[in-house]
């Protein structure tokens, strides 16, 4: 019979749990070098010696007391029956911090295995860890691994297999010179973490009371410690009269004594404490410096977008040639086999024009995500939170809230999810509200297309200013919100600054590949379907199949709404239809335009010229184009982001409110921009 053993991967933020999880399950979950990348638990499977192991990757936590949403998720999961064996992943290059959680996990009484990750970095820094002494002091198996280099993986699984039911710990060997317990039992033989006698006396007292009242309660020692810490979840669940034993919360004493023990462990097991950390300090002197920090950040971001536009556009040229050839080839093929006119119109004007047009933007998207991946993997992101903290403070947000905004340049959906790392619900709401204004990669095709159509050599400048406008609207919104709620800022920045590391090729390859796959997937699903629907709406009308699209359903719908958009210079039924379709995904605006105006290779120079001609004959000029881009920048990003917002906020009312706000802002701003544009 096959058993399923549930293994929970837990550890401090940024210690490599996800990398380890990916190594076992072959999954391609995103990893990066800043704390709080994983915000949801993820599950995967692996088999070892005929048993099935369900692996659970949890958001990183520093302790089992929970403060943020992600910490609550991890704590609840690890304490429930969902987890049979705990694999505590620790960053070996930062043992002192990581062992605190380890000691708490050991006290839980479930089988714990310590996976010492990043042993390669430890070696690199010339440190050594006494792997013989460490398990003696902790009483649990300690397995050195390197998730990045995939070493030690099978030994770790072996340890999990053999300790899954083994509640009894390995023998403990303590020395504790001069600290021998004068307590009734010598707990040093039983527990890794032994407190000073006055605490142990109280623990014993509470255990006695628990024995009387809650005989069936497992692991009474852990519960007793929670009583001493005045942990409300435990004290409320198991009311107990213990006023004669404790007069106050002993939480501080317990924490301090745990850290004292950790110091003892570190001093006994860590050889050649690292001096190499100095290089991170040296880099930080510039990147986090008072005067240089912000300019450096801005230069880096400008460079990222510069690469996205220049190199991306250069590569895009080749994609366009490929698409043109393919389209011509398909047209030839279809007429050679005498396909009927309706079907070949669907394929050429609907599918190839719509989906193909989107695919030509792949190089731009690829470069943007490559740059973001390198930034995230290097460890710079946490510094950005520090650099931006003062500015964000004026907006009533902590620097930490800047990270979701920055991720918003890539894709709004994960950016909205990253807001979970914020502690206060108010901060989360504000961040979720302003994140969609950060221009995501799906909006890029719209800018690239319309700015090069109407602004020629100033196209890149126009693109930059759209990004800037998005940021300004986001800042203004946050500022207004902080004035409205008026409460004094509760937030305070608190974020770990990881050591810098050279970006890992494999990590970055996974990250970028996932994004490219998403993009291709979107082109094959949402955009494909939207293109087909668009084609149907434009080729069928009340009179059936029509060749004149002004008689189609799409035209009828668009004409009803168009007057609403006239003040913004967007009162054309084709544009309105494209904007409505764009709610499915922003790229659809571009693919719809190509279907709407019947231009097969809309992104090529000749395609753009004929589009400009068509639009020009309608009276749609540069000012209208600019207003269109502004509207696309600010209105509802896509259905996926609406769904994510709804899930993160858990309130349809708030989600709906945000959507209305986005539409209103988009309309107002595009009206303003249109009228300013008309002046020139």
């Amino acid at each position, binding site marked *: 019979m096959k058993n399923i053993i549930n293994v929970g991967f837990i550890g401090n933020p940024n210690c490599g749990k996800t990398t380890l999880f990916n190594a076992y399950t072959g999954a391609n979950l995103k990893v990066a070098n800043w704390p709080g990348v994983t915000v949801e638990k993820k599950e995967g499977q692996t088999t070892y010696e005929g048993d099935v192991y369900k692996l659970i990757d949890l958001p990183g936590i*520093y*302790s089992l*007391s929970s*403060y943020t949403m992600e910490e609550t998720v991890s704590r609840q999961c690890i304490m429930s029956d969902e987890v049979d064996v705990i694999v505590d992943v620790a960053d070996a290059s*930062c*043992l*002192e*911090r990581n062992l*605190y959680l380890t000691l708490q996990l050991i006290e839980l009484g479930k089988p714990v295995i310590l996976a010492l990750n990043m042993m390669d970095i430890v070696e690199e820094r010339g440190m050594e860890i006494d792997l013989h002494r460490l398990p003696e002091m902790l009483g649990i198996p300690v397995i050195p691994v390197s998730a990045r280099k995939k070493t030690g993986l099978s030994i770790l699984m072996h340890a999990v297999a053999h300790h899954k039911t083994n509640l009894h710990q390995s023998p403990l060997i303590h020395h504790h010179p001069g600290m021998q317990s004068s307590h009734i039992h010598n707990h040093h033989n039983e527990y890794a973490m032994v407190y000073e006698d006055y605490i142990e006396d109280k623990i014993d007292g509470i255990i006695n009371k628990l024995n009387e009242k809650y005989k069936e309660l497992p692991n009474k020692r852990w519960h007793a410690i929670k009583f001493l810490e005045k942990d409300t979840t435990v004290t409320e669940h198991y009311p107990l009269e213990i006023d004669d034993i404790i007069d106050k919360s002993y*939480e*501080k004493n317990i*924490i*301090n004594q745990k*850290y004292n023990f950790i110091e003892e462990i570190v001093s006994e097991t860590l050889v050649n404490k690292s001096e190499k950390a100095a290089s*991170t*300090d040296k880099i*930080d*002197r510039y990147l*986090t*410096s*008072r005067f240089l920090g912000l300019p450096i950040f801005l230069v880096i971001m400008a460079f990222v977008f510069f690469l996205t536009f220049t190199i991306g556009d250069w590569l895009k040229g080749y994609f366009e040639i490929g698409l043109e050839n393919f389209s011509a080839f398909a047209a030839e093929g279809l007429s050679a086999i005498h396909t009927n006119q309706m079907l070949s119109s669907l394929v050429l004007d609907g599918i190839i024009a719509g989906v193909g047009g989107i695919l030509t933007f792949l190089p731009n998207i690829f470069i943007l995500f490559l740059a973001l991946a390198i930034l995230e993997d290097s460890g710079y992101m*946490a*510094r950005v*939170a*520090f650099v931006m*903290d*003062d500015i964000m*403070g004026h907006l009533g947000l*902590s*620097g930490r809230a800047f990270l979701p905004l920055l991720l918003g340049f890539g894709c709004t959906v994960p950016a909205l999810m990253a807001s979970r790392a914020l502690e206060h619900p108010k901060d989360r709401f504000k961040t979720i509200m302003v994140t969609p204004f950060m221009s995501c990669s799906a909006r890029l095709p719209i800018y690239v297309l319309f700015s090069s159509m109407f602004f020629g050599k100033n196209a890149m400048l126009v693109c930059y200013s759209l990004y800037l406008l998005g940021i300004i609207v986001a800042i203004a919104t946050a500022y207004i919100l902080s004035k409205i709620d008026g409460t004094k*800022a509760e*937030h*305070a*920045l*608190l*974020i*770990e*600054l*990881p050591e810098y590391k050279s970006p890992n090729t494999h990590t970055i390859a996974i990250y970028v590949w996932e994004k490219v796959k998403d993009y291709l997937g979107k082109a094959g699903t949402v955009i494909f379907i939207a293109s087909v629907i668009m084609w149907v709406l434009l080729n069928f009308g009340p009179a059936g199949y029509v060749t004149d699209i002004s008689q189609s359903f799409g035209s009828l719908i668009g004409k009803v709404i168009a007057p609403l958009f006239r003040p913004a210079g967007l009162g054309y039924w084709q544009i309105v239809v494209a904007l409505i379709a764009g709610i499915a995904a922003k790229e659809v605006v571009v693919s719809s335009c190509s279907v709407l105006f019947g231009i097969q290779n809309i992104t090529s120079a000749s395609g753009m010229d004929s589009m400009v001609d068509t639009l020009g004959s309608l009276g749609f000029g540069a000012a209208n184009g600019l207003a269109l881009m502004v509207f696309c920048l600010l209105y509802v990003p896509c259905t996926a982001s609406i769904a994510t917002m709804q899930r993160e906020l858990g309130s349809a009312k708030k989600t709906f409110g945000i959507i209305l706000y986005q539409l209103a802002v988009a309309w107002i701003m595009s009206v303003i921009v249109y009228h300013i544009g008309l002046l020139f």
Partner: protein
Amino acid sequence: MTLKQGKNNQTYQVLSIDIEVKLERRLEALGLTQGTHITILNNDKKGSLTAKFRGTRFALGKRIADHIEVKEVSLS
């Protein structure tokens, strides 16, 4: 003196943390308690600062740094 008043590259010992319980707990969980040694890395800005304690670098907001009482430690 408070941590915010501290100098770069100087190590201090925490005397007390006077901030709402929730945040104090969070700092404690990170190992910043009474008696902890903390080294300031960069306190040039008006607001937040970076510091190292228990072997890890952290960025601490001004509100936290203002509410931690410290005294200088001379490392022999």
